[in-house]
């Protein structure tokens, strides 16, 4: 790993909670999660849709919209809490310190502005007036770092392919040399061959800037290849955090295990893939361990006690009673397997009971 242990973390998230206040009650989209991101590190989030990945990064950017609200916790960027910044200070930090490459970024380009005007806009808004010659030179350099030729500057978005548009977005997001780049599905909607090339460009820019990166992608293969560390989210909770290799080789949380083994691969043919059941309905989630209705190992203890985040090894955390309180599973003894089988059997679509309240 490229991470120096002694350096202070760039980003520290402590007990972050983000709720959406709906008419039917609060939806705990992000519920008490804590993690850190080190300088120059690439951190990946994986999990099913609706597990809170995008809400987490939107909270880091303070872009949560009503009815959502950050209910508690701290987000420390180099030690200072960005939740205490006023709106103008926050607006200044976005893009210059933390930048976002949003989902479907290529559709976020303004169709009636030339590429260079859009990039210039971002620079001028944050840095104030810049001499035009300097600006042009700057934009030329930026385009070069994302492997686009200089004549792209004079083009309109419709003249570019999807991959090229995505590169323009990368150029814009990194124009102000942020310390943290957040990439939400940066390559979905692109062709496979182009995905790879765009991802390589993004990594190149991130390394050149010595920035850290948070990567969200439903392509877990991509995350496995790119990230240094990975966090697994389930129903608003962080259930496991580990180095990428360790996580993909030896996932410890039953959800991580199921998620990773469900991935189609060209290495082996699998039968009966997928995780039984559905993700919980967040207006009426299961109590305590949120995964217990789908978990093959669940015992009564899991339904009665919330699992704490438990440190298995340095750098490997997971929230599962089987790992933090194995003695409970010993005492459950014979009934363990019975309960487990019953849960698994009930698992098929049973958890849609939560789905439908």
């Amino acid at each position: 790993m490229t991470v120096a242990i002694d350096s202070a973390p760039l980003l520290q998230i402590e007990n972050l909670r983000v709720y959406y206040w709906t008419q039917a009650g609060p939806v705990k989209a992000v519920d008490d999660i804590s993690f850190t991101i080190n300088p120059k590190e690439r951190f990946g989030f994986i999990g099913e849709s609706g597990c809170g990945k995008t809400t987490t990064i939107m909270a880091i950017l303070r872009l949560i919209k009503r009815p959502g609200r950050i209910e508690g916790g701290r987000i420390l960027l180099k030690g200072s809490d960005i939740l205490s910044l006023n709106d103008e200070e926050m607006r200044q930090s976005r893009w210059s310190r933390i930048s976002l490459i949003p989902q479907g970024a290529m559709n976020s380009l303004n169709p009636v502005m030339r590429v260079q005007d859009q990039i210039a806009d971002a620079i001028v808004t944050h840095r104030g007036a810049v001499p035009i010659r300097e600006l042009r030179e700057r934009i030329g350099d930026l385009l070069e770092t994302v492997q686009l030729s200089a004549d792209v500057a004079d083009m309109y978005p419709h003249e570019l392919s999807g991959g090229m548009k995505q590169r323009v977005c990368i150029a814009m997001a990194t124009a102000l040399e942020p310390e943290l780049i957040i990439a939400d599905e940066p390559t979905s909607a692109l062709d496979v061959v182009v995905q790879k090339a765009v991802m390589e460009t993004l990594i190149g820019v991130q390394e050149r800037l010595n920035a850290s990166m948070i990567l969200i992608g439903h392509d877990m293969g991509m995350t496995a290849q790119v990230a240094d560390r990975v966090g697994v989210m389930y129903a608003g909770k962080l259930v496991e955090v580990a180095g990428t290799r360790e996580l993909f080789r030896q996932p410890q949380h039953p959800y991580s295990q199921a998620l990773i083994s469900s991935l189609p691969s060209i290495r082996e043919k699998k039968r009966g893939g997928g995780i039984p059941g559905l993700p919980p309905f967040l207006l009426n989630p299961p109590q305590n361990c949120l995964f217990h209705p789908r978990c093959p190992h669940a015992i009564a203890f899991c339904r009665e006690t919330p699992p704490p985040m438990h440190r298995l090894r340095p750098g490997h955390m997971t929230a599962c009673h089987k790992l933090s309180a194995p003695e409970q599973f010993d005492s459950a003894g014979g009934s363990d397997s019975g309960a487990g089988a019953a849960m698994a059997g009930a698992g098929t679509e049973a958890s849609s009971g939560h789905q439908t309240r």
Partner: protein
Amino acid sequence: MAPPLLEIRDLTKRYGGGLFRQPSPPALEDFSLRFAEDEAKITTIAGESGSGKTTLANLALDFIHPTSGQILYRGQDIAEMSRRERFVFRREVQAIFQDPFGTYNPFYKVDAVFNTVIQKFKLTNERSERRRITEEAMEVVGLRPNEILGKYPHELSGGQRQRIMVARAFLLKPRIIVADEPVSMIDASLQMRILEIFRNLKEEYGISFLYITHDLSTAYQISDDIYILYGGSVMEYGDIEGVIQDPHHPYTQLLVGSITLPDPDVRWEGRSASASSEETAAINLNGCKFYHRCPHAMERCASGTPQNYRITPKQTASCFLFE
């Protein structure tokens, strides 16, 4: 000998064109394929956007008409079918589309999906019978009817909606299902469960699939054979094992090399940074379509069109390297 169930012969489709305009380059060119009457299989059509895979799906479903070539269903050209024959064709060849959100009318309960096809194809008039076949179809795709029926589409997850679409197709006892990117909008963890249903329908009910996708990993899991399309032409064809594990055509090699494996020990191979110009390199219309992007391009590739050269008994590649 009985004619094959579905036979596509030298199918070409050009869009646009007209009296005074140059015809556009072909979206699909000289494509042939065959599904046997007695042996169900899952055939994948893979390629990037613009490769012609959705054009093929639309042609096979008779949504659009070919510029040249034929599609024969049980030996009968679908362009020349009588009303009666077309009715049978429409029932026996079913479609599943990409977007599990866009295929529903949000104002109707999901029951309407089943009731509509039951009425249209006159499956039954009786209410109890209607209920029975609907429930049977839902159970085949692993849904519990009492949890789903009576609900509106927005109350269901993407995976459930897509399974309802599979159930709807199954209701009609089709022989072939054309599935155009059926799982690309579904969570990775659920994709395999839907594809598992496809495999079941093939094995238990003898339903063949034309599985159209850009994702070679899922194709590898369920297909029997695969066509790799580029610029409307077949680059490589063969049994799935051969094409994925031992790709011969340079384009297939590029595609297979771009697959991300969920394995941190396998890093991407090949070029560290590709020029973006390569992504948009125009398709060569005079010779090999892949000429402008091919690392092995030779002079003759610019103007000569390679045939399908046999590599193994079950695999062909359209590339002069294998002449």
